[in-house]
């Protein structure tokens, strides 16, 4: 039956419903283990306040890590790549046209010459 049969990938199969059943079973097991733990959480008490080694809690906006601060290490590690790629995206229309014309010319050489 199509509805339940797996997808043939050319190398193997993918059966999402089997995956889903396994996911649900694992989730239930995890929930049961979690549920066996000690329930000491009390909402609205000092217990829920962040512990910052006795320092005052900063304003909400100050503790949120903004987008520009994420993946700093990744961007530094690939600095050479980004130093080339980002300036390539100049935003100038004539540059876009040059790329388009250059690719067309290259394709003409490849298809005209090799095929």
């Amino acid at each position: 039956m199509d509805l339940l049969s797996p997808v043939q990938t050319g190398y193997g199969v993918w059966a999402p419903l089997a995956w889903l059943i396994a996911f649900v079973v694992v989730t239930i097991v995890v929930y049961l283990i979690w549920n066996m733990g000690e329930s000491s959480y009390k909402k609205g008490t000092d217990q829920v306040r962040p512990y910052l080694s006795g320092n005052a809690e900063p304003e909400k906006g100050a503790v949120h890590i903004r987008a520009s601060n994420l993946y700093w290490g990744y961007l530094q590690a690939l600095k050479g790549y980004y130093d080339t790629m980002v300036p390539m995206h100049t935003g100038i229309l004539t540059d876009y046209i040059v790329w388009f014309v250059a690719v067309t010319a290259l394709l003409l050489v490849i298809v005209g010459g090799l095929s």
Partner: protein
Amino acid sequence: MTLADFIVTNAPALLVAIPLFAAFTSPAVGKISTAARNLWVMGAMLLTAAVAFILAFRVFSTGTVIYVFGAAATTLAVPLDSGGIPIRIIFTVDAMSAFMEIICAIVGTSVLLYSLSSESKNTSLEGYYALFLLMITGVFGMVSTGDFFNFFVFLEILSLASAGLIAYRIDGGLAVEAALKYFVLSTLGAILVLFAIGIYYGQYNALNIAMIAQRMQFTMLDKIALVLLIAALAMKCGAVPMHFWTPDAYSMAPSSVTAFLVVASQASLYGLFRILFTFYNVTLNCVTVGWIIIILGILSMVVGVTMAIPQKDVKRLIAYCAISQTGYMLLGVGVGLAVLGNAALSNAFGFVAMEGGIFHIFNDAVFKGLLFLTAGAIFYRIGTCDLNKMGGLGHNMKYTMIFFIIGALATAGIPPFNGFASKLMIYESVYLFNPILAIIAMVVSILTLAVFVKVFHSIFMGPQLPEYADVKEAPLPMLIGMGILAAIVILFGLFPQLVVNGLVAPAAHALTNQGGYISSVLGGA
């Protein structure tokens, strides 16, 4: 003839006639009241979608449908006194065309429903809806036509309407600048397409796709025409290194328009695939041209995702991811093309790679559309797309956050969402062709997940920020629009084989079956 018979018989023509008529009459209806105009455009879109589904059902159950405009019978492709040439305008709707029509119908309906709320505060809505319906007309026309000159006409309709809508917000001139870039490049691309049409007409005395395909000799002029078409249509679908217009246009257009621009780009991708497989097929050097498509795909995947990571504007970031996802489609279909001349390799993995690439077109239209709509919902509520200014919105916009998670996980190819199914088909079949390409595709998926972790954290996580304490959830029509796409993402993810067997495999067969396409038009003379 009953009304039902009339609709079934004339479905291909109605597919472009209804949105075209509604586009030009919507400004007049808008003079009555806003509600009347909304009802008019939504009614037209629903009717067009219904016609698209009826036509697709007919195609998938009985085979290719041809529709000849102005003929005594709608199936009379070659008039007796025409010298054997199909001289009239013909729509040839095979399974691949029907597949694209379903995408356009679903995304178009969801986006238009979303627009009723998202654009309600703006002025010049008469122009907005007229242009949006012209975009719908353009896409339906491009994927349905069996006449190459008409393909150019609908491409132009689509490009002009898209440029108008990209500039819609003006935004201190930035949106107009983005539209100008899109418009100039689209016009340049259209000139190349027109030049290629001239080459074919000069050689084969025909504009009909089936007729040109039947007479194809693959002369040097045909090679030049092929290159012009590959360059023009690859640029229009945002393939690297001709992608530069994409982030500019996608980020400056209203989100609803951007969501449909994804489908517009895919219509160009359809055009590219149609030319490669229906025009040329095995007459061309499949290995060389296949590798050109594969390299365009790999470049798009890698450059798209790596350029997405440092972006600070959420729509610009998603636009780069859209470029990256286009790469998967090019990779899958490129591998299928590269082994097209070898039956053994085609059967072993080439056809599955093509199926994966074609399946990913549908999936990308849905999940990428969903992501752009969630970005639009956020902009609608907080008035910025700057990720650095966002945070903690998960407290206020829970449904939008859930829709974003669904779209993001599907884009990254995480099971059980639809993106995983199509990507897995691409990974495993491409691995048999060249393991390095499959590894690159998997690494790009991991990077895509990293991109969306950043976006999710920046927008939704963290404490509720004081400036957004009063932000409300997106309005109901916007949620319904997003909900429809999210439901499809989940359903296609859970039952992929149903989609592959019912829609994707017939579309891939139709695309590769050049003889079938030709005989459906010329064999019926």
